[in-house]
Structures are given as structure tokens and as C-alpha cells.
């Protein structure tokens, strides 16, 4: 359980100071630990916030130029919406009074540090720093969705879905595990959210992609798959690098403490394992691509790096460096196999988010018991399935409700001319390609 964990960490810190005698009574040490724990949340949270930019660039590079401005707007606005919703209902729904149950309470969140300011540092960190760190995770789940359903979904219905996802769906399933609910009590282990964040985004995206249908022209008669290349590979690469950097905050910050030697040792291991898993993911993907296709498709190799990152996220603290490389490498290969598979199923996933976040999210969660003796394969499976079922059913409900009321898909004409002129009234690259300003 997320919150408890850091309190334990703070307690460990105290225990780790034998020369101080009655450690529990010593203010100064806990004082520093409180500062360091909070600062770790802020710095890590800022890195995770940066992942929103990574998703934006990755997706902007993987859609066609006529939809680039729209995907940029979706990404920056979904991050904003996630923050507001998590303040309005999400945080308390996830963390306030779950007590082994299924959800917390409703109500606005507000920072409360009276105890700490009065000299009682037992909370372990500033409440605002914790909120900030938790909030950026919500946005990540929503970012996953935007990539999959790009190039054909209407702007406002998409944002409405994000409201429900970040305000209701994510917090409730989060309450089960990180909030101290029933899954946590069962011993489900998901360090930084392979299931709780990435698969959640994946399931929501999967139902969306199915209900929305494929982009026009993506699938031809007789099982033909027509590739629709993305408009800018350097932007996609930049996005991947941004995500990789942000992931140090995502996994490293999930130590939930910095105020003890134990915490910083663990954080160091998490950083290096995160890095090695990503490295394993991209190298394995490249080798697989070379063998299968005789060419090394960059767009898929980038997915390989992200696959490694998602795969290690459920348990970055326990593997040895070598095991981290392997866990990531399996993820990298899975992505190379999963992308054409989804195409065979005619599920149109513009950026490969299903293969990366859903498939590898599941793999990463199930791989935890290999290196963590306390995790059980069965419990992990129960976690994966219950979260998957819950998110899929609710998401499908929301998508369908919108489909038959306000509509979720742009008209065929708008799809052909691109969402940018249709919904935003501008072009991403007016002077290039088909841009209207070329002749000025």
C-alpha cells in the first residue's frame, strides 16, 4: 500500500539511527526525513509531469500531419483535466478511508500540514507533495488512451472520457491497491503501476479503439493492412526520450521516501533497473525486427524502449541488473509481436499504446514474483484480471453512452481533411506538406 509504505520508510529511518538512542523522540532527524521525502515527491513528480510532454511529442510524431495540432491539444488538455479532476474527486476517492474496501470517500481534496508545522512529522511528507506526485500518475493513464484513439475521435467527447477516467475509474481501481483496499490486503504488488497506471490506460484505450473503429483506409479487403506512417520520426524519438527521463521520476519517486539510507539505496536500484530495462527493451526489439523484417523500423524500436519501461514498472526494486535487462527485453519482443497482432484483429492503435502499455503492463505485473519472493503469481493474476474487467466494463459503458448520444467519431469528410482544420481551425504545419501557406 502506497501511503503506508512511506510511513514505514520513515519508521525505518528512525530505526536506522541506533546511536541516537530513543530515536522516536528525536525531532531533528525526522525533520530532515520529512523534507527529503517531500522534496523527492516534488522532483519526481515534476519528472512525471514531463512525461505528458513525452506522450504529446510521441503521438504528434506518429499521427499524420493533418491531425498533429489536435493530438497536441488533447495531450496538454488531458493533463490539465486530470489535475483538476483529481483535486475535485479523485484523490479522496482513492486514498481517503478505503480501509480494505472498494473505494474511498467523495469530496474536494485540500492540503493539510498542520501536524507537521506543529512539529509532528509522522505524516512523513508534506500533503501537497504527495498529492502532486499522485496526480501526475493519473494523467499518464489518460495519455495512453489518446494515442490509441487518435486521428478519428472527436475532441470534446474524448476529453469527457478523460474526465470520467481520471475522476472516477482510475481512482476507484487505485483505491483497491495503493489506497489500501481489498487488492492490497490480498498482497497484490505493483510498485509504480504496470497494472494500476499503464494497463488501466490500456484497457480504456482498447475498448475505445474497438467501439470507435479503425481509421478509414487502415484495413483493406482480404485482411490487408495499410500502413499510415507518422508524420515526424524525430518528434516520436524526442517523445520517447522524454518518457524515458520522466520514468526515473515515475519509478524512482515510487520509493515514496528519500529520508533514509534504505530509501536512497532502493531508489538507486530503481533508477538503474529502470534504465537497463528500457535498454533491454529497445535492443531486443531491434534484434527481433532485424530478424523478422530485415529492417529496423524506428517507430517500433521506440515502442521497444517504452515496453521495457512499462515491464519493469511493477517491480523495479527487486531484480538484479541482469534480470532487469531480461524483463525489459521480453517486453521489447512482445511489442514487436503484438503490434501486427492487433492489426490482424483490426484493432487500430495509432501509436502502439496497446502493445506497450496493456500487453507489457500485464507482463510486468506477472513477472514480479520472479524476483520478489513476497509476491504470488496468483494474486498478481487476480489483480490484472479484476482491474482489467473493471476498467473495461466501465470504459465501454462510457464510450457506448457517448457514441449513441453526442457521437464520438468525426465525420468521414473531417477524417479525410484532418481533425486540425475541422476541430481546431488551424494546421499544424501550414507551410509544409499539404499546408495552405505553402504558396505565400
Amino acid at each position, binding site marked *: 500500500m502506497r501511503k503506508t509504505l512511506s510511513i514505514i520508510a520513515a519508521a525505518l529511518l528512525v530505526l536506522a539511527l541506533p546511536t541516537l538512542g530513543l530515536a522516536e523522540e528525536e525531532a531533528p532527524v525526522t525533520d530532515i526525513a520529512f523534507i527529503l521525502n517531500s522534496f523527492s515527491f516534488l522532483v519526481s513528480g515534476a519528472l512525471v509531469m514531463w512525461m505528458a510532454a513525452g506522450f504529446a511529442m510521441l503521438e504528434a510524431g506518429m499521427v499524420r500531419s493533418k491531425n498533429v495540432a489536435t493530438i497536441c491539444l488533447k495531450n496538454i488538455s488531458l493533463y490539465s483535466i486530470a489535475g483538476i479532476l483529481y483535486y475535485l474527486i479523485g484523490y479522496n476517492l482513492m486514498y481517503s478511508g478505503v480501509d480494505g474496501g472498494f473505494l474511498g470517500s467523495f469530496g474536494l481534496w485540500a492540503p493539510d500540514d498542520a501536524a507537521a508545522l506543529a512539529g509532528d512529522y509522522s505524516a512523513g511528507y508534506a500533503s501537497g507533495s504527495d498529492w502532486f506526485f499522485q496526480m501526475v500518475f493519473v494523467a499518464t493513464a489518460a495519455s495512453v488512451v489518446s494515442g490509441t484513439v487518435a486521428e478519428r475521435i472527436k475532441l470534446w467527447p474524448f476529453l469527457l472520457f478523460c474526465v470520467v477516467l481520471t475522476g472516477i475509474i482510475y481512482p476507484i481501481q487505485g483505491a483497491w491497491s495503493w489506497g489500501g483496499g481489498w487488492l492490497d490486503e490480498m498482497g497484490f504488488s505493483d510498485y509504480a503501476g504496470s497494472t494500476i497506471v499503464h494497463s488501466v490506460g490500456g484497457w480504456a484505450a482498447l475498448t475505445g479503439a474497438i467501439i470507435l473503429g479503425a481509421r478509414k483506409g487502415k484495413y483493406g479487403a482480404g485482411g490487408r493492412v495499410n500502413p499510415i506512417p507518422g508524420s515526424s520520426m524525430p518528434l516520436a524519438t524526442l517523445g520517447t526520450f522524454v518518457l524515458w527521463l520522466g520514468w526515473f521520476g515515475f519509478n524512482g519517486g515510487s520509493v515514496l521516501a528519500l529520508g533514509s539510507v534504505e530509501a536512497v539505496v532502493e531508489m538507486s536500484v530503481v533508477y538503474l533497473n529502470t534504465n537497463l530495462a528500457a535498454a533491454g527493451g529497445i535492443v531486443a526489439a531491434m534484434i527481433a525486427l532485424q530478424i523478422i523484417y530485415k529492417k529496423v523500423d524506428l517507430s517500433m524500436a521506440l515502442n521497444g524502449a517504452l515496453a521495457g519501461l512499462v515491464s519493469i514498472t511493477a517491480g523495479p526494486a527487486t531484480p538484479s541488473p541482469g534480470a532487469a535487462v531480461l524483463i525489459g527485453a521480453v517486453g521489447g519482443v512482445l511489442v514487436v509481436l503484438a503490434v501486427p497482432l492487433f492489426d490482424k484483429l483490426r484493432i487500430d492503435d495509432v501509436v502502439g499504446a496497446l502493445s506497450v502499455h496493456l500487453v507489457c503492463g500485464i507482463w510486468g505485473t506477472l513477472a514480479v514474483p520472479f524476483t520478489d519472493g513476497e509476491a504470488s503469481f496468483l494474486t498478481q493474476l487476480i489483480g490484472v484480471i479484476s482491474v482489467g474487467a473493471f476498467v473495461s466494463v466501465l470504459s465501454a459503458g462510457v464510450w457506448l453512452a457517448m457514441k449513441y448520444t453526442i457521437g464520438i467519431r468525426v465525420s468521414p469528410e473531417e477524417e*479525410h481533411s484532418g481533425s486540425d*482544420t475541422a476541430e481546431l*481551425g*488551424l*494546421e499544424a504545419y501550414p507551410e509544409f506538406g*499539404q499546408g495552405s501557406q505553402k504558396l505565400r
Partner: protein
Amino acid sequence: MKKVECIIKPFKLDDVKGALTDLGIPGMTVSEVRGFGRQKGHTELYRGAEYQIDFIPKVRVEVVVADERVPDVVAAMQREACTGRIGDGKIFVTPVDQSIRIRTGEQGPDSL
């Protein structure tokens, strides 16, 4: 020989290309152009100001063919490029005095 040139909607390119190859036309030259005509452009918005985009993206397909093939080519182009909606474009036929294949130096219809 004649050059048959059509200005069409971009998404019709594949169809026109397909029909021409079905006719056995072995080569063609395609370029991006902007059209201005009855079909009106769209309105864009930027920083609080709206404006009209007059020019619409079109594709030009040019084929040089022997005189006797002109009717077939024109018919194929018209059939494939037609959506019945404004802005479908035009076909123009113009005379060509001479044609040379650069690689071999062949001349006339043989060079096509």
C-alpha cells in the same frame, strides 16, 4: 501524340492510377498543385482571426499517349475521378510534337 492531363481530388489518385495501368498505360507523371474554382476553400482560425483558404490541394496527373488512346484515357480519368461533387476537376488534352525516352533515345509513341 497528345498529353492528357487531369486535375483531380487527391484521394482519387489511386483510382485514376489504377485505371490507367489497367488500360496498359505504362507511365505517368504526377504533381501537387493548388486549385481555385467553384469549389470553395475552407475557413481557418488563428489567434482570434478567421480567414479563407482559397486554394484547395489537387493532384495533376499527366500522361502522354498516342493519339488513338486519347478517348480511352479521357474516359478512364473521368470515370475514376468523378464523385459528382463540385471540385472534381478537369481534363485537358494538348498536342505533343515529339517524345523521347532518355535512356534509349527512342522517339515517338514507342518512347512512352
